[in-house]
Structure formats: structure tokens, C-alpha cells
């Protein structure tokens, strides 16, 4: 037996065998190893032809939830310490007689109509013409993280350290030389493979792809991953995370940016209507402040100028350009007014329209993410109401300070009406908490009334006090002077900040993040 085992080489020094020796050994093994051979069978023999692209195919009957794919992907791609491009979810369902437990491994679905790419303001995403793989261009990314909003599958991952996002590229450089992607190679039960799909077939039957309970509607982005399972899922199948409701990140710079741009546009327009032109300086100051705030949201602000590239597809790009233009025009306007003390109406109107378009873009930025809390007309309405309320109350304050208080009652009336509408609109979400089914909107309502109850309460206190109670006093002439308008404005502004804070924190993404049983 011993003779069979080792031949010669006995007097070689002990320790590690040399690299050359090992290389030869490995090469030999690679030719022979059944594993290698099988792994090669898990990728297509040919590259995609016309009308085809690469796609993941997962045999769920073979996935046992070991998660080797997640960790192998991490190591074979050299990701950051806790960075993962793959995730494994868990579904439960069935009855005590026939219980069903199913792990779901997923990475990027390399969609035909990728929402990450469509939303990117700087064209940092490309859909590879040859392979159909959705590639992210690391050096082009400015770290705006908008793709982490638009992707329905929670695929792009933001790295704070690097200031950019990363995502799965299906190990394109491996596939190009006939190697299997890391996850395919690492799966002990061969549940993941790469196939060729006909894009026309995906377009015709989008529902056949990512056909998993609770998965977002495939028609949205046309994902290409196919999940195979012999038996259909029982009707009551839900993900293990379904009942854990966790808040999202607050994105503070975006809160500041949104509220202040809307204030800026609002006061500009309100000033225009009320014929008071000093407001322009406030509008400009606030607008610039808003833009400055937005920069803090970027991982690589130096490259922010690239945002013009995505105009064709991206609402974020349009938003940035519109507000950039608004800031530019209002600066010119302010300079012009400062020097000449006259107003060019067409110039003013153009600026105002650009600003209003900017607010509209802001709303669209969130609407297109399809997250139920963001994806309705309420978002647009809310943003414009904020514009109106803050603009009017700002002007009210300005007129009181400058002593031109004759328009005050009208302004108060407007404030009261707008605030009343806005508070009612916002309150409508809370009725979802009474719903029988645990919908996405009900989860939002639960968060607002549960974990964020204090914020929600203060939001309404600020709104009612600043937008209704104090204006009534003011209207009735009980109190005069500029102190009351100051309070009104301050309360309304605070209220809007609270509202926007809730806007970000209580939204429920289409796919929940990988955080089983996290704190509610």
C-alpha cells in the first residue's frame, strides 16, 4: 500500500512542496477533477447569439440553504469585509402535514430593462451588448446611491469606504474565458447554473422569471433569472422576514435637500406672485444651501458634474440639471436685481418654471422606484404642497419684516388651506394600519404609529399649530408683529423636515434587506 502511495521524492526536504511542483499537481488535478469537469458543465458551451443573453438559473429543489455561494462570491471577488453580492432568503409555507421550507439564493438578475441603469444619472451602468450582463462602472460612479433605490431586488450595494456602489457582474471576466462564476463553482449541490435566454421569450413571459412568492412584479425590469421547482409553492408561502418591519436609512442630506429646494422654489414663486422681489435673495441662499446639502449624499462629489450624462433616462439627472439651472438663473436674476433693481418678467418666469420642473423631477425620482409608499400621486402632491406652504409662509415672514403686511391675511388663508390638505393627504397613509392584510403600506403605517410615533406626532403638532392654529390668531389680528410669522414659519419648516424624515425611514422597499428577525 505504501508503495502505491508515494514514489521517490523521499529525501526532499520536509515542509511545503514547491510552487512549481504544486502548480503541476494542480494543473493535473484540474484536468481530472470531476468537480471541475462538472462545474464546466454548468455554464453554456457557447457565447450568447443574437437575441440571447446570459442568465442565472437556480434549481430550488437542489438549494439547501448552505450559503456557500454568498461567501464564495465574497472571497473569489475580493469584496469588503461584510460586503455580499449574493443573498439567501428563506420561505416557509404549507401545512403541518406537508410543511414547506425553501431557501432562495439570488444575486443580480441582469434585467432586460435594468432599473439601476435607467435611474443612474451618470451612465455608470452598461448592459453588455454581447452577454447581456448589467455591468457597473466603478470609476464612473459618483456614489449617489440612487440605484439602491431603483433596483427592486436590493442588488447594488453602497460602500461608504469607497464612496461608490458595487454589484454582481456574473463574474463576466471568468465567463469570458470559460470559467464558471464563483457562486456556480461553489455550490455543493449544483443548484446554480448559467444559461442562455432568448430576450424575446423574457419579454413575452416576464412572469416566468424570478417567479417567487413576494417577488416584485417582473414586468417592471424584466429580470432573467429563472427559478426551477418541481412543485408549486403553497399559497400561504411567505418569507421569514415578511413580518419583521424594519426602517430604512434616513438619507439626511436628501431630507435637507428636498425640503430646502422646495422652500427655495416656493418662496421664489410666491415672491413673484406677491410682487416682493427681495425674496430672491432668500430663494437663492436656500437653494444654494440645498444643493450643498445634496453634495453630502454623494460618495464622490467631485464628479457630480457627470450628472448631466443621464438626462435621457434618469429623473435624478433631470432633477440635478433642473435645480442646477434654477440656481444658476436665480443667481443671475439676483445679480441683475441687485444692480438694476428691475425685474425681467420672462427671465423670472423661466426661472420659476425651471424650479417647478425641478420639484416635479424630485417627485418622479421617488415615484419610479415603485415602492408603494413613494409610487403614487401623493408624492408629487406632497412635494408641491411643501413648496406652497414653505413658500407662502416664507413670504409671510418676509412681508412682515419688511413691513408690507397688507397681503398677510391672504397668505395666512393660503397657508391654512394648503396645510389642511397636506396633513389630510399625509394622514391617509395611517388608515392602512387598519387593513386586514399586511401590505407594504400597512407596514409603513405600522412604523409611523409604532417605532416612529413620536416623530409622527410632532409632525402633526407642528403642522396643526404652525399651519392652522397660529394663522387663525394672526388672521384674527389677535397678535401682530413679525414674531408670530416667525413661529409659523419655523413650525411649518420643522414639520416638513419631520414629514420628509418619515418619508425616507418608513418606506418599505420591494425586496426586504437581508436581516432576519431584526429589531422592529
Amino acid at each position: 500500500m505504501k508503495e502505491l502511495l508515494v514514489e521517490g521524492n523521499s529525501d526532499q526536504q520536509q515542509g511545503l512542496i514547491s510552487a512549481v511542483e504544486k502548480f503541476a499537481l494542480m494543473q493535473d488535478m484540474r484536468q481530472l477533477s470531476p468537480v471541475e469537469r462538472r462545474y464546466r458543465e454548468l455554464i453554456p458551451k457557447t457565447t450568447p447569439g443574437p437575441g440571447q443573453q446570459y442568465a442565472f438559473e437556480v434549481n430550488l429543489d437542489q438549494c439547501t440553504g448552505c450559503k456557500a455561494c454568498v461567501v464564495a462570491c465574497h472571497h473569489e471577488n475580493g469584496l469588503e469585509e461584510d460586503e455580499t453580492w449574493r443573498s439567501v432568503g428563506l420561505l416557509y409555507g404549507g401545512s403541518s402535514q406537508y410543511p414547506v421550507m425553501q431557501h432562495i439564493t439570488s444575486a443580480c438578475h441582469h434585467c432586460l430593462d435594468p432599473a439601476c441603469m435607467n435611474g443612474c444619472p451618470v451612465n455608470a451602468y452598461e448592459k453588455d451588448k454581447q452577454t447581456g450582463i448589467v455591468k457597473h462602472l466603478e470609476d464612473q460612479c459618483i456614489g449617489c446611491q440612487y440605484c439602491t433605490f431603483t433596483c427592486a431586488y436590493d442588488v447594488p450595494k453602497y460602500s461608504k469606504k469607497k464612496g461608490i456602489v458595487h454589484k454582481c457582474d456574473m463574474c463576466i471576466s471568468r465567463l469570458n474565458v470559460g470559467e464558471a462564476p464563483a457562486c456556480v463553482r461553489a455550490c455543493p449541490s449544483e443548484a446554480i447554473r448559467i444559461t442562455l435566454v432568448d430576450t424575446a421569450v423574457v419579454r413575452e413571459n416576464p412572469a416566468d422569471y424570478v417567479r417567487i412568492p413576494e417577488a416584485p412584479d417582473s414586468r417592471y425590469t424584466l429580470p432573467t433569472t429563472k427559478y426551477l421547482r418541481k412543485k408549486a409553492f403553497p399559497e400561504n408561502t411567505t418569507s421569514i422576514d415578511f413580518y419583521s418591519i424594519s426602517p430604512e436609512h434616513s438619507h439626511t442630506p436628501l431630507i435637507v435637500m428636498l425640503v430646502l429646494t422646495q422652500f427655495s422654489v416656493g418662496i421664489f414663486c410666491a415672491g413673484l406672485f406677491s410682487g416682493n422681489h427681495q425674496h430672491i435673495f432668500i430663494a437663492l441662499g436656500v437653494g444654494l444651501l440645498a444643493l450643498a446639502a445634496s453634495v453630502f449624499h454623494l460618495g464622490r462629489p467631485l464628479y457630480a458634474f457627470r450628472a448631466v450624462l443621464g438626462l435621457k433616462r434618469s429623473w435624478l439627472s433631470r432633477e440635478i440639471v433642473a435645480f442646477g439651472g434654477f440656481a444658476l438663473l436665480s443667481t443671475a436674476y439676483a445679480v441683475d436685481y441687485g444692480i438694476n433693481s428691475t425685474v425681467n418678467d420672462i427671465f423670472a418666469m423661466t426661472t420659476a418654471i425651471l424650479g417647478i420642473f425641478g420639484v416635479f423631477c424630485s417627485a418622479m425620482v421617488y415615484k419610479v422606484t415603485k415602492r408603494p409608499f413613494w409610487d403614487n400621486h401623493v408624492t408629487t402632491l406632497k412635494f408641491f404642497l411643501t413648496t406652497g406652504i414653505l413658500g407662502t409662509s416664507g413670504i409671510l415672514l418676509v412681508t412682515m419684516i419688511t413691513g408690507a403686511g397688507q397681503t398677510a391675511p391672504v397668505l395666512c388663508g393660503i397657508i391654512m388651506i394648503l396645510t389642511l390638505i397636506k396633513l389630510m393627504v399625509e394622514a391617509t397613509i395611517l388608515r392602512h394600519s387598519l387593513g386586514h392584510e399586511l401590505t407594504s403600506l400597512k407596514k409603513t403605517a405600522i412604523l409611523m404609529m409604532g417605532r416612529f410615533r413620536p416623530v409622527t406626532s410632532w409632525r402633526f403638532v407642528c403642522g396643526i399649530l404652525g399651519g392652522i392654529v397660529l394663522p387663525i390668531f394672526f388672521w384674527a389680528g389677535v397678535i401682530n408683529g413679525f414674531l408670530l410669522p416667525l413661529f409659523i414659519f419655523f413650525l411649518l419648516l420643522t414639520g416638513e423636515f419631520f414629514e420628509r424624515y418619515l418619508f425616507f425611514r418608513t418606506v418599505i422597499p420591494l425586496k426586504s434587506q437581508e436581516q432576519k428577525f431584526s429589531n422592529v
Partner: protein
Amino acid sequence: MYKNRLIKKITNLVHQKDGPLTQELSLELSSLGLGRLPKRLLPEETVDMICGYCSTGCSLSVHMKEKNAVNLTPTIKYPVNLGSACPKGWEALTPLRAADRAVTPHLKNSHGKLEPVNWDTALKAFVDNFKKIQVKYGKESVAFLSTGQIPTEEMALLGTLAKFGMGMIHGDGNTRQCMATAAVAYKQSFGFDAPPFAYKDFEESDVIILVGANLCIAHPILWERICRNQHHPQIIVIDPRKTETAMAATKHYAIAPKSDLTLFYGLAHILIEENWIDQKYIEQHTSGFAEFRNHVKKFDPPAVSAVTDLSVDQLYEFAFTIFSKKRVSFWWTMGVNQSYEGVRAAQALINIALMTGNMGRPGTGANSITGQCNAMGSRLFSNTTNLLGGHDFLNPEHRQKIAALLKIDPALIPEQNSLAYDEIIEMISMNKIKGLWIIATNPAHSWINQRECRAILRQLDFLVVQDMYHTTETAKMADLILPAAGWGEKDGTVINSERRIGLFRKVVEPPGEALTDFEIFKRVADYWGCAELLEEWTSPEAVFEILKRISKDMPYDITGIKDYKMIEQNGGIQWPFWEKPTALPVCGEERYSHRTPGVRLVDKSERRLFEDGKYYHPDGKARFIFADVCVPPELTDDTYPFILLTGRGTTSQWHTQTRTGKSLLLKKMYPREIYVEINPEDAGRLNIQQNQWVYVATKRGIAKSRAVIVSTVKPGQIFMPMHYEETNQLTFAAFDPYSRQPSYKICAAKVAHHPYY
């Protein structure tokens, strides 16, 4: 040229497709045959070693760059894992870099606070305190608790030092918690603790019966081996829960908790009644069958059906499957081992394998899959339950033999057996053991009925904990912490479930002043004044030579293994491996027969035992061993109506999480908070909502847990994973009378909305 560069710079400013950030993620072909790897982590060489978690014994190729371990991939050529690993293996290097590594010894000061000291002070305190205790209370008042996580050489050194050098009588390991039952079962049935299988048997079976084994979660790479089976095997899982493995199997028998022994006797009953047995094998190779036949007479199908929750039809179907297929293999894990009657349950499986002739042939066997990476090294060489190398402390000849082989005075070898883990704990509670040395294990978390265990450990005069981390639940209770090197920071050998000896290699320097356990033991010997006893024990590889000497003519004879290098070159070597080529039982296909420079690999790389039907009892026969079925030690009642099951949670978690809790990546993949799985019917009745906090209580303790409502647990049963500290505050301390293994798997519990009701 210059113009082009300028144009490129400008276009890059606007739209940059390549650059430093892209390059950071770029891959490059490795010259080591590992395919494309991250460019910045491209290895100059790889070092292959066995993973330090479970007993599957996968090989990992650690990537070395500038003498640093930068990454790893599972070894492609290794016959165990064939290029795969579970998440723990892939992440094996990360826990070494944890911030809470013990980097200097810590000694309790006069205020009772642990403070850093140097090694000299630490070892003086170690020796002074233990010697003082021994003088005051007798030699046996100092004991040790060791582990299945360190290499065999270190275990042997510890056992030798403690028992022959320091005069300790009692020492045991955490392997008591995982494989003691299998060891005793084999020893009694086969005459020696010899798991008979090779993993290859997974691939060659027609029927694979998994009892209390959730391979998909506990041993994912062994599940891979099942997936490689080309015979379209029937995979039968016996488990009260619908585990991941039960989901993936072809058949799941959800028996009532702890009705396994009844089920196996019932199956034996049917097999005998129907004459579905192998008379020839029974006559030639076994003894005690007539008594066994008698014993199982009373286990008629209706009675067994009533106990197991399986119908009579299911019982016949099950028995017929065993009878009708040629190659049937039986595999068990902790569901059997961790039981108050685990030894007899394991032996009931052995009995069925024996009487159906499912032994010694490809794809057969009664096979125990164990827990820790070196459980088997501990079984053979820890010098705890057995005298070094599977010998007997009570046998004067054995003592003589070992003394001669070690060149020591036979009088140094204790003439009495060591107490088992639970008995050591009990001796502490009775103040008979006052000093305890714990090495690489965490009883303050893992021991059954943990609260009582902690209270008892507090009774000690001096507690030494030798560990990688100063933050384990046990280390926090210590009087002295000795900082130890971990896996990847030292050399040695380990033995996996299929008897394969593999290597641990040093690829990372231990942090700070941490030392290898080997070095710590040597220093202790110096300070204790028994260094001359260990003169020959200079390095792990020198110790391996001693172990080879001890193994001569034993069932696990490894005298044919020349050195570590031979182990490495052959992809591990299964015991036995004799020096002289003999008619070794062999199995396995020609796996890698190609010639490579200087090396020729194992032709028959996977071997099983008993192909000749010869067992280790003096008569060469295997024995049928059996006993009456007992009632569970704790039964449910009106106050505690639920049966609490415990087990492994996910593939990313290992035991008490001292290591897996250090990896951010692994932490992402398992629930942060302790949870309890409960059936929808019970949850509905108790008005418990999904994901809600509930209180699980037993007579021992209470644990606030998240309710996970799933129908994979049956009504009346609840399941909690063992990795969370609270779980073992609930478990009931019962033990198998033969193996002294704790019965973690069953106790009575209640679930409530409030802590007190």
C-alpha cells in the same frame, strides 16, 4: 501620443470605464491553477490544511502573499470536499483577526479583576495555585477539560502532561458532548471504537438512512457527497422536525421525539418476522443474535406505531426498503448521540446493519458522523477516558506497554479511570475538585443546564481558561487566562469522521504573546518540574512519531505514514495504514492515477473497514447489544406542555459562536437574536404572532426569544438553536448511562407572552 493622452484624460473625466476603483475589483489568472482571483490578493503559493470546524475534514488551500494568509479556496484535489466548503470554511481566516483575541495572559488581581500579566507570572500562578490545591485536597482535586478542536499531538501532550506529569486523575473533553455515544457504541459492538465507513459510501448506497442528522446544515459537504450518488438513492430522514435535509430527502419519517430506539427495535422485529435478514452474515460474523431476536419480539408493529407516530404501513414500507435494496447505509449524528439512551439507539442501528448484511460492502455500514474537527483524535489520544491510544487504565499490561513506549515509570500512570465531564462537574459541586484547567472549550455556554454549571464553576478555587479569546463566557469566569493560538497558527494532525488523518498548518503568526497550545503545555511542564518526562515531545511532528509507535498493531495502526509531508501529498490518509503492505481492506475507484512530478497519489483513496467481516472482539465477531427502552427523563405536563428540541441553526454558526460570531460576513447570514420555532396551531392557540417576542421557560430557566411560526416543527414541539447563550439555560441535565453524553435534545417547556404567569 501626448494629444491622445490628453483626450483620454478629458473623456475619462466625463465617462471613465476603467481606473483604480475598477482595478480594485479586477481578477487575474492565478498561476497556481486556481482560476481567476482578485488581483490585489493574488497568491504566491497556497498551503493546504484541514478546516478547523467540523469533523467532515474539508481541506482548504490558504492563499499566501508576502508570507501573509490573504484568502482561501477549498482544495480542489482533496478527496473529502472536492473543491467545496461551507461558509464557515470559506471564512476560516477572519476569526483569527478578531479584536478580542487574548494577546497576553490575564490573572485575577486582589480585587477580583482580570489584568494582563507576563507569561512568567502567569505560569507561576498556574503552578502555585494548582500545586497548593493538590497539597490541600489531594492530587485528584485538579482536573482538566479539553476539546475536539486542537490537533491530536496537542491532545496527547496535554493528556500525558496532566496525568503522568502533574498527577491529575480526571480529565475529559467537550467531545463528550458530541461523539462519546458513538465511541462507546462502536467499542461495545465491534470491539474497538472504529467508524467503518468512507464518505465514498454516500455515493455508492442505494438507500441512505439519516437518523437525527441534518447534513444540509450541519455537514453541507457531506450532503454534496450524497448529491454525487449516481444510483438514484432513496434518502430517508428520521427526525421529529422537517429539517432542511428532510425537505431535500426522498422520504421523511417524522417520528415522535426520542422514539428512535423503539422504531429501530420495531424495524428489527419486522425484518426478523419477515425473514428479511442475512442469516449467513449473522452466523459467520456476529454473536448474540438469538437474544436480540428474543428482545425485539415484544416490539410488534402496532405497539411501535403507537409510540413513534408512524403508521404500521409506514413501518413495513421502511423495513421493506431496507430489505429490498442491495446497499443500505445508516448514518447518525447528534439526534442519536445526544440522548439519555443514545448508545443503545446507535447500537440498534448497528444491529440492523449487521443482521441485514449491510456491513463491509460499498454503500453500506452503520456510520456515525461526528461533530468537531478532531473528535476522533480525542477518542484515540486524549488520554482521558482511554489510556493513550485506545488502551485501558485498569489493565496493568496496557500501563506497562504505554510506559515502555513513552520510556516513563509505569507508576506514573493512574490505575483508575478518569471521571466523565458531568462527573467532574459534580465533583466540583461536592468540593472534591477545586482546580480546573479548561482548554479551548466554553462550558459556561455549552454545558447542559448552563446556569447550574456556572454556579458550580464559581465554587472552584482556581480556574484556568486557555483560549483564543478572552471574551468567551467561560474565560470571563477565569482566575487565569492563557492566550492560545488558533487554527491556522500552528501545526498538527486531525482525524475526520471517515478516519482520515489530515494536517493543520501554521500560516499566520499568533497575535501578541499568544502561544500554541503545544508551547503552553511545554512551558507548563517546565514550570511544574516535569519537563524531563516530555524530552522526546519536542515538536508536533516529533509527537506524531510517538503516536505512530503507540499505534503499532492496534486497529488504528498508522505506522505506514512516513511523515506530515506524506499526509499532505496523499490528500490525507485514513487509518489504519500499516508499515508493511498487508491485505488492507480497500475500496474506492481509481481516482487520480495520473503521474505528476515526484508524486504519485493514492490509487485507492477511500477505504472502509470490515470488508473481511472480521471485528475486533477476541472471537472476531460483532455483538448484538440492546436494552429496554426508557422513558424520557423529563416528561411534558400541564405546566410545561411543549417538548423543547435543540440543534444547529444555520451553516454559518458553530457551537457557542466564539469564532463564527467574529465574522461580519457570517453574522449577516444568521438571525441576530435567539428564536424559537413553533407550529402555527400552537401559535394560534396561544395567540402568538409571527416574529413576536415570547418567553420560553423550563424548570431551569427562561429565555426571551423571537417566535418563528413554522409548520416544520410539529404541534406540541418547539425548536431552539443551540448557538445562543440562553438555550442551554433551559436544557435538562440527563445523561446516557454508558457514554455519559448529555441529552440535549429533549426536555419539557412552556411558551408564554409574559415572563411570569
